[in-house]
């Protein structure tokens, strides 16, 4: 595609809130039908860049130029800007549920969007809406037309959002993390859809994502953003092969996909602004096939009541064993019941049937003070570190809370234990008096890990513990967890939706789908020759951070 005649030309875009400038001089040009990627971690300013292009960054001071076919959007009167928004420049957001009106039918919303940007009659708009639904791959558009957003799955909702965005035939489509809220298997389909639409309509697409794998197969050009600045811009093929900037290299080396070597720690290059020291290299704990099981889950069933007479089996006859000193990986997409398993294993929820035993003791027979004593030996690390830490307590208080709960040690003794545990997870004593909200997600997750470790447990349940972290932080936390396992002889139940991360962490893997464990086995065997078709499709759906292989992967799953 030619960039001589750019559709969108962003020049030195700056966005400021008071004294902070989260976007500080971003420039790029987008040609007709070109696919541009903006890649960065949270707080890099990538979403704000898109919002500012649309002039949707409220209360912000925006400067620079945003030229759409030579016309500066930043100086356009707001009446005309309204016509541009959703007309010539359209946007697709991360969460399709909150972007759709829940009390209006899909059809109504589509027709409304079309009529806003053209003088089509109700009948023509309706016909066009139906065409669009068909084009984005919503099956039976006639019937779906009069349904409400809640009757659509996440992926279908996102298709509707894309249909709405494309209905006006925009010149530019800004897609802000369009697949982040979706399952991997759906992700590929949505990216393919964007790809096809960009080709058919000649629309320039700006894909904003934190996922280097997604960007690899889709984008012609990739901008890497960090701290509000574009640190590197390059054609995708060049960027992934030979990144010029240190930060790009760090990002790329931190990516965990199915091609990485599991026997070596992920390379997290030292960054001058790293918020904690680099972890020592952690070889994986050896997989000792003879190790005795520490946790045994047998025929566990747990269902939830949906309404009168309506139940859903969140976990259906699940059985597995977790061996001492090893990691058992549990993979599944949203709604597969994997979090229910984690709660069942820790006796946080009563079971409908089956048993969970810990170190030979059936947890359902243990109650009261005895259960509390047993809890000292098993701990949990949650997905959202901000929610899992008491926002009113300092780091030292949070980490000391389990000690206090079990009346261990005196003040000075606890203080020392807390300091030692914080050091173990790579946090210095200067963090003692910080509050969770003043720390980054990675630091908070370290505090959560420290809290889990402070009682010297044998067993940790890690429920999506790295899913909300940025890639580079994720890599550090994964290395830390492996390192701790070897040093402390810990046993892990590692739960994640991300097959690649599970592959890196686990000795044994189980794949869960709709409450049922469809396949389980030794990590190497399972990944070498997956038997269940669902495992196959999960593996095939994971993007690879390499443009060539990623394109090949997508081509394969399409056929």
């Amino acid at each position: 595609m030619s960039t001589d005649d750019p559709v969108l030309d962003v020049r030195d875009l700056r966005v400021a809130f008071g004294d902070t400038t989260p976007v500080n001089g971003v420039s790029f040009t987008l040609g007709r039908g070109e696919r541009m990627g903006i890649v960065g971690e949270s707080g890099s300013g990538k979403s704000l860049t898109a919002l500012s292009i649309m002039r949707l960054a409220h209360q912000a001071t925006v400067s620079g130029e945003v030229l759409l076919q030579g016309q500066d959007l930043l100086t356009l009167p707001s009446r005309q800007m309204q016509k541009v928004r959703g007309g010539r420049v359209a946007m697709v957001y991360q969460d399709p549920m909150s972007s759709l009106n829940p009390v209006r039918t899909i059809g109504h919303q589509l027709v409304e969007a079309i009529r806003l940007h053209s003088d089509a009659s109700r009948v023509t708009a309706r016909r066009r809406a139906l065409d669009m639904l068909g084009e984005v791959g919503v099956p039976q558009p006639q019937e779906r037309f009069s349904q409400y957003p809640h009757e659509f799955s996440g992926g279908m909702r996102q298709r509707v959002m894309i249909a709405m965005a494309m209905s006006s035939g925009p010149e530019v489509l800004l897609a802000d993390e369009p697949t982040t809220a979706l399952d991997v298997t759906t992700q590929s389909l949505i990216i393919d859809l964007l790809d096809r639409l960009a080709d058919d309509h000649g629309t320039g697409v700006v894909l904003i994502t934190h996922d280097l794998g997604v960007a690899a197969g889709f984008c012609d050009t990739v901008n890497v953003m960090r701290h509000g600045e574009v640190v590197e811009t390059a054609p995708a093929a060049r960027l992934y092969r030979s990144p010029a900037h240190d930060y790009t290299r760090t990002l790329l080396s931190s990516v965990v996909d199915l091609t990485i070597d599991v026997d070596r720690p992920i390379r997290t290059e030292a960054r001058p602004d790293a918020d904690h020291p680099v972890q020592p290299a952690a070889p994986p704990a050896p997989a000792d096939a003879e190790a005795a099981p520490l946790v045994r889950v047998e025929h566990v069933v747990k269902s939830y009541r949906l309404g009168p007479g309506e139940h859903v089996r969140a976990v259906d006859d699940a059985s597995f064993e977790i061996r001492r000193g090893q990691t058992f990986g549990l993979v599944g997409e949203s709604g597969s019941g994997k979090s229910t398993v984690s709660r069942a294993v820790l006796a946080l929820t009563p079971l409908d049937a089956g048993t969970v035993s810990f170190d030979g003791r059936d947890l359902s027979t243990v109650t009261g003070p005895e259960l509390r004593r047993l809890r000292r030996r098993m701990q949990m690390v949650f997905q959202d570190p901000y929610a899992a830490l008491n926002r009113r307590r300092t780091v030292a208080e949070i980490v000391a809370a389990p000690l206090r709960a079990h009346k261990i040690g005196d003040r000075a003794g606890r203080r020392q234990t807390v300091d030692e545990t914080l050091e173990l997870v790579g946090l210095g004593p200067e963090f003692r008096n910080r509050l969770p909200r003043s720390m980054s997600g990675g630091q908070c997750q370290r505090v959560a890990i420290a809290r889990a470790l402070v009682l010297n447990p044998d067993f940790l349940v890690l429920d999506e513990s790295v899913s909300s972290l940025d890639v580079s932080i994720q890599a550090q936390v994964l290395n830390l967890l492996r390192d701790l396992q070897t040093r402390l002889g810990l046993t892990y139940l590692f739960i994640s939706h991300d097959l690649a991360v599970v592959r890196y962490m686990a000795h044994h893997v189980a794949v869960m789908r709709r409450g049922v464990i469809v396949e389980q086995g030794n990590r190497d065997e399972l990944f070498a020759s997956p038997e269940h078709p669902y495992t196959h499709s999960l593996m095939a759906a994971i993007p690879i951070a390499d443009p060539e292989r990623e394109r090949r992967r997508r081509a394969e799953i399409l056929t």
Partner: protein
Amino acid sequence: MADSRSMPRLRRRGVPLPHRGRWLTWFAVGLLVLLLVGCLAATWAAPADPTAQSGERFAGASLSHPFGTDELGRDLFSRALYGGRLTFLIAGGATAVAMLVGTLWGMGAAFLGGLLDELLMRVADTLMAIPQILFALVFVAAFEPTPWRLALIVGVLLTPTTARMVRSTVLTELQDDYVAAAVAYGAPSHQLLLREVLPNIRGQLGVQAAINGANAILVEASLSFVGLGIQPPEATWGTLVQQGYQRMYQSMGYLLFPAALIFVTIWMLNLLADQLGGQDPRGRAA
């Protein structure tokens, strides 16, 4: 990972709150403290003995009698200060009772769940179904109204609403992962509720306390107005309003000044409740 999360955080940090909010809070706090101190220190603050009769009856507002005098020539300003002391004691006592009992009640219901929750909440519903004034009337008619009894009765009246509010707040908190984490590391129930949950709901408790305070003043004034509150010669603001109402045509100030005090106090308490409600450590509007 997703920028949609960092965005609001940034907005919170980067954009200062409008100053109006803080200014109003301090204004409300200042005025309330002034009233409270003035009334509690009535012995020193009052210019005259509230029972001393001067020759002037129904005098208008003047420098020597800022609110004028009543039918016996007593200084109304002094009577209002002494009356305010009683009003504040009754309202404060009632609020304390309501907050203490209501918090335990609501927390218990939320935490225990199941049948006990059902039972506790149905009792609360039953209490709320009885009109407040009627409830108070029965009690006051049965027992002679002393300040402490009044505080207790009004406190009991305000308890069910407080319990309901606390229950729903605690239920939301119990969903949070930090509570699950505390259960998982084996925190005993009392520690879980008092050390983990309680600090996180103190904002909402503050709001409820302010609302309870305002309601207590209103209920006490209503009781006094129908003659069932504190009996003369002792007087609360409510008693003063009742007496002033009967002598409206002799002196408007007799009615208006105590009424204005009630009005301003309740207004300021509600203002404070609003301002407190806008603050939440998570940055969301509560």
